[in-house]
């Protein structure tokens, strides 16, 4: 199995587990999914994006980017048993961070025999719909999920040209 096949396997798992997570943990059904490869220089992010690095045998970044209406609804449901936060933004980011961490972490379980040494970074967050820009055209694997409360997209980004080792966004 080559790198591209590993990546497709990971992305299949991420799609399946995102549907499961939204259904089982949040109680939301995904209405439709569109999957495509984008050949672009700029990638538009939504209101809030959580991003983590998959390291080791797989060297890619995964990003979950949410419409404001959707992440606010997910957060409201996810934190309904907790005391309200002093700062709403903290709960919003942590909701997006927990979601990508659980979905990508769980997705790695099926890759145990194929990619044994894979690490995950803690998630980082990008606010307010920035553009990710590459110096030349690049291919991004993308899923776009439509739900009642809004849309989210999942990007698989690689190789590591857009972010440095500490996941700091590189301005181009």
């Amino acid at each position, binding site marked *: 199995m080559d790198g591209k096949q590993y990546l497709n396997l990971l992305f299949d798992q991420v799609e399946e587990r995102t549907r499961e997570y939204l259904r089982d*943990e949040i109680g939301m059904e995904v209405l439709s999914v569109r999957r495509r490869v984008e050949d672009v220089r700029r990638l538009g992010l939504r209101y809030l994006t959580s991003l983590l690095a998959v390291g080791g045998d797989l060297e890619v970044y995964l990003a979950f980017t949410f419409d404001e209406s959707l992440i606010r609804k997910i957060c409201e449901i996810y934190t309904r048993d907790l*005391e309200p936060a002093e700062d709403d933004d903290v709960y919003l980011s942590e909701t997006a961070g927990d979601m990508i*961490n*659980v979905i990508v972490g*769980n997705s790695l*379980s099926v890759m145990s025999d194929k990619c*044994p040494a894979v690490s995950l970074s*803690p998630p980082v967050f990008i606010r307010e719909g920035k553009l990710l820009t590459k110096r030349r055209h690049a291919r991004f694997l993308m899923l776009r999920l439509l739900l009642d409360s809004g849309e989210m997209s999942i990007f698989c980004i690689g190789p590591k040209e857009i972010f440095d080792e500490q996941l700091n966004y590189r301005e181009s």
Partner: protein
Amino acid sequence: MESLRVMVVEDSGITSKKLQMMLERLGHQVVCMAGTGTQAVELYRQHQPDLVTMDITMPDMDGIEATRRILEISPRALILMVTAHGQEQMVMDAIEAGARGYVVKPVKEDKLGEHITTAMAHCGAPDAGKPSG
């Protein structure tokens, strides 16, 4: 189940609070919460909890290294990994580091309770948190 004094190690505030609520409903007392591996080692020295729930992916020191360091302080420490990372190799690394169990997120209260019971049965807690020597 016997009531344990627990330290929760977790970099997500929401997950920490959810774990705390589950542990308290299971009859345990959360005595401290750490957000990084380094903080976990420091707080372990101070509180000597009966049980540690340990995340793996954290800023600075990861949960596997923090587990090793806590076991240097107290070789009988009862540490349960609570993590999203589902890879077999990661489970093996955690067990080799000395963890007594492995719970995959998202955490369900009944599963957490079962893992705590199993881990306690294997190591004879709650005096597991006492320092060696």
